[in-house]
C-alpha cells in the first residue's frame, strides 16, 4: 500500500522533502512507515525515540494501523509559543 508522508521542521530538512509517497506491505502501522522512511532517509534514525505521529491529521500512536492512501505526519519535538 502507499501512504503520503509529511515531515516538519528538522525532519523535513534532514529528509530533504516535506512530503513523499512511501510504499509499505500491508498490514502496516505508523512505525512500519517510519522504518521504511528511515531506509531512504537514514539521517532520520536518531529521531526514533523522539518522534510523534499524526494519521490523517489526528495524533496517533506509532502502533496505530495505517491504510492505503493515509496521510502520515511525523513530528519532531515541538517548540511553539
Amino acid at each position, binding site marked *: 500500500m502507499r501512504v503520503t508522508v*509529511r515531515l*516538519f*521542521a*528538522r525532519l523535513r*530538512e534532514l529528509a530533504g522533502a516535506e512530503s513523499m509517497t512511501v510504499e509499505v506491505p500491508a498490514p502496516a502501522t505508523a512505525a512500519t512507515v517510519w522504518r521504511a522512511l528511515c531506509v531512504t532517509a537514514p539521517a532520520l534514525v536518531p529521531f526514533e525515540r*523522539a*518522534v*510523534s505521529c*499524526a494519521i490523517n*491529521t*489526528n*495524533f496517533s500512536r506509532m502502533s496505530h494501523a495505517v491504510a492505503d492512501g493515509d496521510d502520515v*505526519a511525523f*513530528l*519532531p*519535538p*515541538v*517548540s*511553539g*509559543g
Partner: protein
Amino acid sequence: MLAVTRAPLSVDALAAEVEASVREHGEGCGAVASFLGVVRATHQGRAVRYLEYEAFDALALKVFAQIQAEAVDRWPSAALGIAHRVGRLAIGDASIVIIAATAHRAEAFQVCRYAIERVKQIAPVWKHEFFEDGEAWVEGAIVNPDDDAARARAMEIACA
C-alpha cells in the same frame, strides 16, 4: 478565536472577539487576561538575528481547540483565544497571543497560563533560530496528547 497565520498578531482584535463571545453567557465577562510570546534578542547567550516558525496548521488548530475544551472543562466561565504566527519574525515580534476572558480576574490569569503551558507541550509548531553565527531548530517537548501527567502539570503551574 483560533488561528495560525503569517500576518502580524493583533491583541486588541483577539481580545475583543474573545470578550464578546462570553459577554452574554452566565455571569458575563469581568476580566480579560492576555499573554504575548515575543521574539527575544538572545538565546542561551547567543545573539538572535531572527526566527522562523513552522506549523502543521491543520493539526495545530485542532490542538488549540482541544486546549480550549480543556480550559472550559476546568473553568466553565472561560473563553479562550489562541493565535500563533508562523514564517519569519523579527526581534520583538509577537509569535503567539493568548486571550482568556472569564467572569472574575483570578481565573483569567489561570486560563492564560494553562493555555501557554499546553501549547508548549502539544502544539505542532517549531521554532528555528537564526544567530549571527549559525542556526538551530529548537526541540522541546515530545508530543503525547494523551499524557495526563503533562496536562496535570500544566494545571498545577496555572493554579500555583
